[in-house]
């Protein structure tokens, strides 16, 4: 069995014919040649395959392409605009937020959406009191570490990643 899937990927309509068992990650990498999202653990444990669906960060290895007909997908390839890097990409360079680079696209995609979650007032496990409103000013380094815990970095660039994310979150 093959199914038709149409998705808006990085702003362009893409129509694919996939087997139902094809993960979104495999469809992006193998069918659309978008190799920014990485296949690392392939079990939802490392975050290297993080992309956005309708603006939300998700793990593309743990969902099927066929479940996303009609959805808007953004990968790291779609983050720059008019040839300029996203501010988080710039800050990862500025703060030396990577070494081997394998986790980096997942880290950046996760962080971009995470900052929006914090702006929307979402609490986290690091939030002292979930009954009180949360604002972006509450996004401490401890909050960033907790909210980014779904992205592993084998080179252990964590302090620099937190610095890059904190700098972008502190701007408007």
């Amino acid at each position, binding site marked *: 069995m093959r199914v038709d899937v149409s998705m808006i990927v990085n702003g362009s309509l893409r129509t694919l014919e996939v087997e139902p068992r094809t993960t979104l990650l495999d469809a992006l990498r193998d069918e659309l040649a978008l190799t920014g999202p990485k296949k690392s653990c392939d079990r939802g444990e490392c975050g290297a395959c993080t992309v956005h669906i309708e603006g939300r960060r*998700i793990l593309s290895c743990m969902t099927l392409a066929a479940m996303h007909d009609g959805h808007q997908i953004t990968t790291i390839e779609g983050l720059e605009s008019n040839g300029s890097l996203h501010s988080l990409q710039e800050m990862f360079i500025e703060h030396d937020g990577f070494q081997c680079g394998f986790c980096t696209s997942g880290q950046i995609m996760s962080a971009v959406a995470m900052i929006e979650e914090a702006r929307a007032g979402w609490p986290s496990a690091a939030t002292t009191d*979930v009954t009180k409103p949360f604002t972006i000013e509450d996004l401490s380094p401890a909050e960033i570490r907790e909210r980014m815990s779904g992205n592993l970095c084998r080179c252990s660039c964590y302090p620099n990643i937190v610095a890059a994310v904190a700098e972008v979150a502190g701007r408007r």
Partner: protein
Amino acid sequence: MHPFSLSRPTDVLAAIAAHAQNARLAFIAGGTDLIGLMKDRVTLPDHLLDINRLVGISQIEALRDGGLRIGALARMSDVAANPDVRSRFPVIAESLLFAASGQLRNMATIGGNIMQRTRCTYFRDEDDLPCNKRRPGSGCSARYGINRNHAIFGWSDDCVATHPSDLAVALAALDANVLVRNPGGQRLIPFAGFYRLPGNTPEHDNVLERGDLIVAIEVPARNEGGASHYLKLRDRQSYEFALVSAAVAVAADRRRISLARIGMGGVAHKPWRLTRSEAALRGVSLDDIGALKLALAVSFADARPLAHNAFKIELAQRVALRALETAGARL
């Protein structure tokens, strides 16, 4: 993954009818557990029915009486961020925020969360080691294997696994109900009767049958809901399943406990209520730590540790005590 077919209906009744008629069909929602189980060849359905398009089962409703109705397709992150959930039942929001990662919480649904299967490493082993839950009759590798993460209550020689859901522990403590629909109609299953102990049929985690679809979780209004807390202990500080956890809600009259609800995770095949301790806590002052400890110990008299997890008996009591103190501070 193995080949399978897929359908994406929008009508609840059509989805239920398809499930009732095909024993090789599985519902898929967030997919965050099922896809892993399929990749590890633990579950091999012939057909997946994508329920994400089903209409009318994803809302989070704050009921006028103080209760909540959470649609089965509501995502963990939306429920955890919901202001009514956070103020009425902080224990629910916390149990969700201490689970999984930001990405997984955006995908995983409430119905799927309470349906997730055990993290017992033998159950999920790629080499298909003996496991009665995975292959009935094959034996339990954990019973005399590495069982540090396993049960101290309610286990059988056929299965010593624990239930991994944090949310389920909070819902059990609050005596929530699972709203289930099947071809014959709709029924409410109290949380206390939703999960099973393993006995000699550990392949059944809960009482749901073919043709059943969870459509919502209903949390009754609870005066003690606001003074509640979820405390989770794990081997690392974030993004890990519980070693031991406690969900507590408490009501008190001038610091003397009038009602305590305590559910524990990581200790049994289902969320484990400390029923006898809850009774013993009635009338005890929240400031009398010694008396609180004695009352909590009552439920642990019948704990049965395995070779590697006797430490959980002491740890669980400390977790319950600290959760009770934190919940009490919200009074």
